[in-house]
């Protein structure tokens, strides 16, 4: 039988526009892993035919909304799923155009790996540079540059090496802990699942091999204990009369019964007396487990508090310095007040200053800019009504991130990554 018990999970984000072959590549990954069903393929073939295409447009598989199909473009993030015997994959498939930067930021926020596609004939473009910058800002730990359409440059090693060198040069300006550059032809399948016979000069992994084997378990912070309290469990039943447990998802470090811990922001210290996973006591908990933690002392703990180690705890702060991606039409300006959600804590935030706007194509910092428009990213100073129990985003993507909400409309208008 097929059992998934031992399987692990890789979330990856792709970005691209109509011409760079992204849909073809995703279509191929799905087809070659037998994740496209006959009825889905038939529907796409029928639509392609009725539109008068002489090929099956695999983009129709992912363009799920009527408006997207009508306009022939991807607007929103689509999530796609496939699995090989050892790993399940979640693809966050995002649009590539600059006017959809916020969608790409959204897709990248949960990704372990980012896949940037370039057309071998064109080499690096503004768009591919922008994608790499966004993935690096979102601290996606693994980056793959797939040099596509190698069939159209006669599988030339020289072309590949030139793009490779140009990209590595550019990547020195970014935070890219792990980079893999792979020459492929998504259309013909070279180096996607099967090793290409036409590029004997390439000795690295195929794309699928790399996706299956890239090591992601150690990307999470296993050192600094961070447990945002999400929900206090008090059964108030006869069987569990004195039961009091703190439900939450481990954001960092390894928690064990007996550990001396501090509860923030109160600063009270106590010990972990037990950790439950449903009806079972477990010896330790680590990210991203959702568990219930019990403390030795009856200290006052509620939602929004954080459990950390006594000698390794975040400093509560109301002054936040962060990179913010702005996601709505009304620009972000100093003096603006917004709601902020960070881990399980909610408060209000005042925009103190916009230090600069980052040009995501060139990395140029525009310090003249006094506002952030839709899809722009900049460095922003905030003052919050409640202290945030935060870490630098570079250290922990859970305790280092927040969202900004417009209090009047209730819409999510900004995404922030805390500097430090």
């Amino acid at each position, binding site marked *: 039988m*097929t059992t*998934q*018990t031992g*399987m*692990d*999970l890789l979330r990856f984000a792709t970005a691209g526009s109509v011409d760079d072959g992204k849909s073809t590549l995703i279509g191929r990954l799905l087809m070659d892993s037998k994740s496209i*069903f*006959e*009825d*889905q393929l038939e529907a796409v073939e029928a639509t392609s035919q009725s539109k008068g295409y002489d090929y099956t447009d695999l983009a129709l*598989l*992912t363009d*799920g*909304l*009527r*408006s997207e*199909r009508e306009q022939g473009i991807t*607007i*929103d993030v*689509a*999530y796609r*799923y496939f699995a090989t015997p050892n790993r*399940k994959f979640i693809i966050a498939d995002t649009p590539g155009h600059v006017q959809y930067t*916020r*969608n790409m930021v*959204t897709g990248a*926020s*949960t990704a372990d790996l980012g896949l940037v596609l370039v057309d071998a004939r064109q080499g690096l473009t503004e768009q591919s540079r922008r994608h790499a910058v966004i993935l690096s800002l979102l601290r996606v730990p693994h980056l793959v540059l797939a040099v596509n359409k190698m069939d159209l440059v006669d599988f030339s090693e020289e072309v590949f090496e030139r793009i490779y060198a140009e990209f590595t040069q550019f990547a020195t300006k970014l935070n890219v802990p792990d980079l893999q550059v792979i020459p492929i032809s998504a259309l013909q399948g070279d180096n996607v699942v099967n090793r290409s016979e036409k590029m004997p000069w390439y000795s690295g992994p195929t794309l699928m091999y790399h996706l299956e084997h890239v*090591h992601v*378990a*150690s990307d999470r912070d296993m050192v600094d204990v961070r447990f945002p309290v*999400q*929900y206090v*469990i*008090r*059964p108030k*039943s006869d*069987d569990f009369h004195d*039961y009091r447990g703190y*439900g*939450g*998802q481990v954001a960092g470090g*390894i928690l064990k019964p007996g550990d001396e811990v501090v509860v923030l922001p109160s600063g009270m210290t106590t010990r972990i007396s037990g950790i*439950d996973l*449903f009806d079972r006591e477990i010896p330790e908990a680590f990210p*991203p*487990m*959702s568990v*219930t933690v019990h403390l030795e002392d009856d200290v006052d703990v509620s939602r929004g508090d954080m459990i950390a180690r006594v000698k390794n705890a975040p400093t509560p702060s109301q002054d936040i310095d962060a990179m913010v991606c702005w996601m709505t039409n009304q620009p972000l300006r100093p003096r603006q007040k917004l709601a902020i*959600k*960070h881990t*399980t804590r909610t408060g209000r935030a005042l925009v103190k200053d916009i230090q600069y706007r980052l040009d995501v194509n060139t990395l140029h910092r525009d310090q003249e800019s006094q506002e952030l428009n839709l899809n722009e990213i900049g460095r922003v100073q905030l003052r919050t009504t409640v202290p945030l129990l935060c870490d630098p985003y570079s250290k922990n*993507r*859970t305790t280092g*991130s927040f*969202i900004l909400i417009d209090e009047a409309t*209730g*819409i*999510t208008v900004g*995404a922030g990554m805390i500097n430090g």
Partner: protein
Amino acid sequence: MSQTYADYRLSQLDQLEAESIHIFREVASEFEKPVLMFSGGKDSIVMLRLAEKAFYPAKIPFPVLQVDTGYDFPEVLSCRDSWVDRLGVRLIVASVEQAIADGIVVDDGKTSRNRLQIGTLLHAIEENGFTAAFGGGRRDEEKARAKERVYSHRDEFGQWDPKMQRPELWSLYNGRLHEGEHMRIFPISNWTELDIWDYIGREGIEIPSIYFSHQRSVFERDGMLLSQSEYNPLREGETAAERTVRFRTVGDLTLTGCVESTASTIDEIIEEVAVARVTERGATRGDDRFSEAAMEDRKKEGYF
């Protein structure tokens, strides 16, 4: 260092479970009046199991809502009752027949019960003042769902606006609502059909017997095998025959087809699903077949 920590890894099923539990707890914390929409199908049973785990040993802190089409499989209703009894949760049944009788929805004889569920459901949500309704939708099911958020906003009319979806980043969910609006919550968005079966197998939990192979009197309509019943009279030219079948999805029995199968254990079902070449909705759901955007259109109106 990293070699030591490499041992600390969660299987993908455990990661999915952890994510779903996080969502349940988040909603229970931030919404005044959540409710779990329960169809009796495998996905909503997995949701109940996850909710049970999220709040254990406390009871699930919200009720369960079922929209009774009047055409439900009796096996599904008895499984529902057994779950509700065991968990001690409050069950609210919103009946389509009652909604027709009360004039909330109009049965013109042409509209399917599936479609009439929409008005019945929205009425039940409004009448009870529910602000968040958990649904068992999965993104792998259908392409409109593939783009839907975990927290999916509904306006005062219960409608979904796919162009106005809120960005959803990290695991930071935005549950802000205005008066009269509500949120649909999809805690198993990232699960696939195979994940659901693996989890049911791993947890050893009860599901309706019609998911397993059994003898049933069925007939063919529009390329689907439908169950013979008083609600499903045979049309001219249709003949019923005894076959060995099972259901891949459960819904309104006049629209939900079964497949010929001898899979009588979870392991056999997993084996079958792993090699299936047609999606579960494509194979067995008449309601999704009407147009390319059938699901998107129903979702906009307020469907599950």
